[in-house]
């Protein structure tokens, strides 16, 4: 299992931009928002949690379709299927690799970008915590979407249509946790729900992804 994770991380780094790509996209989206919404401090402060979360979500989505597509094209997906590593494990490792190259950098960088949007001081801790809890779910759900559409030519757009509705609960609880944190309200409920969804995703989706991969390999 770990062998696949290490190989994917090495590939991401070697391919250049592995870590930076998602991060750069995240930065661009966050920088674009004030141009669209205007520089007023009150507006930005109020929408900062939502913007940071939506930007994180889109950045995760951006780098998803490469997860299985590359392996499918060069045949290593079929070879993986006949290896002792079960496809469920492969899907899990792919999700973890995606999180390490996209979700984790986002979580670390988000507070720094909070300043650009005048994020309320109390919210930084909650922003980091909610992203840390939520981005793994984005990667796992995304891996499921990628597994579903691996065989489809130009399946990237379709995958976004399939994955974005599945992101809604994570987005709602994630952004809500930060917004309530910013206003000093209790954040226990959204954070626990967020963690619950992530745990549920990692319990259910590797099996669904493996089933989808097996169908696509047929």
């Amino acid at each position: 299992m770990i062998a696949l994770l290490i190989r994917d991380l090495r590939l991401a780094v070697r391919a250049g931009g592995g870590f930076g790509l998602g991060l750069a996209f995240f930065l661009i989206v966050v920088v674009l928002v004030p141009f669209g919404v205007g520089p007023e401090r009150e507006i930005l402060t109020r929408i900062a949690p939502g913007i940071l979360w939506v930007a994180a979500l889109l950045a995760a989505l951006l780098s998803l379709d490469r997860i299985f597509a590359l392996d499918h094209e060069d045949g290593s997906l079929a070879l993986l299927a006949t290896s002792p590593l079960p496809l469920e494990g492969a899907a899990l490792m792919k999700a973890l690799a995606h999180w390490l190259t996209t979700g984790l950098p986002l979580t670390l960088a988000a507070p720094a970008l909070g300043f650009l949007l005048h994020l309320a001081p109390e919210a930084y801790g909650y922003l980091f915590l909610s992203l840390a809890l939520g981005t793994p779910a984005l990667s796992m759900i995304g891996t499921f979407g990628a597994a579903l559409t691996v065989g489809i030519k130009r399946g990237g757009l379709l995958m976004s249509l399939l994955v974005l509705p599945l992101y809604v609960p994570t987005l709602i609880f994630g952004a809500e946790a930060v917004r309530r944190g910013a206003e000093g309200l209790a954040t226990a409920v959204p954070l626990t729900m967020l963690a619950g969804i992530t745990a549920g995703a990692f319990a259910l989706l590797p099996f669904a992804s493996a089933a989808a991969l097996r169908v696509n390999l047929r």
Partner: protein
Amino acid sequence: MSIWEYANPKKFMATTTPVIPWVSWASFGLILVGLGWGLFLTPAAENFEHSVKILFVHVPSVLMAINAWFMMLVTSLIWLVRRHHVSALAARAAAPIGAVMTLIGLATGAIWGQPTWGTWWAWEPRLTSFLILFLFYLGYIALWSAIEDQDTAADLTSVLCIVGSVFAVLSRYAAIFWGQGLHQSATFSADKETNIDPSFWWPAVLSMGGFVLFFIALVLIRTNALIRLRRAMALEARANRGAS
């Protein structure tokens, strides 16, 4: 003769084709009577006046939107377990109907709420969760048409339907939780017949029955169409194979 007998497409088509006209006319009649009664014979409710009549279309469509997805879930499971083509095609046939029902529910819900909210759309928890359900329907329908091989499409859409159902329920709670953020509590939630007094009961039940029969009739029509399409493709493929 177990019910799995109907899994054979030709047998399914043979038995359902004569039934379709009856179900169609019955649903047309029920809807006509139900909505007619609701529109013209019921008094104005105390504080909603006549806008309560919108409920006669809003409630059935909303219920059918949920039941259609549930039916798709059941048929997807039947396909994955028993590999019966008819159930996979029935799921594909039901999806557009469910999507339209969700659309109707959204439209009528927005119109129903407009006088109270003062705007045509409010991110009220119930309407929001139906908007999310509509996105699930779109994804499901799009996945079916994106895959050439019919059996692969059936398998993948079934997996999507199962995972989608789990997330649809999650979205429902997320929307309710998120809706409370709106400082205006849901003044009314247009909940089912429970808060409708007896004089409205009959038209509501009739139109509900009409919508259910409508759904059944249209699913049968669309499933048979898909079966014929699949049979035509199979014959064409065999002809090509024979020729090559």
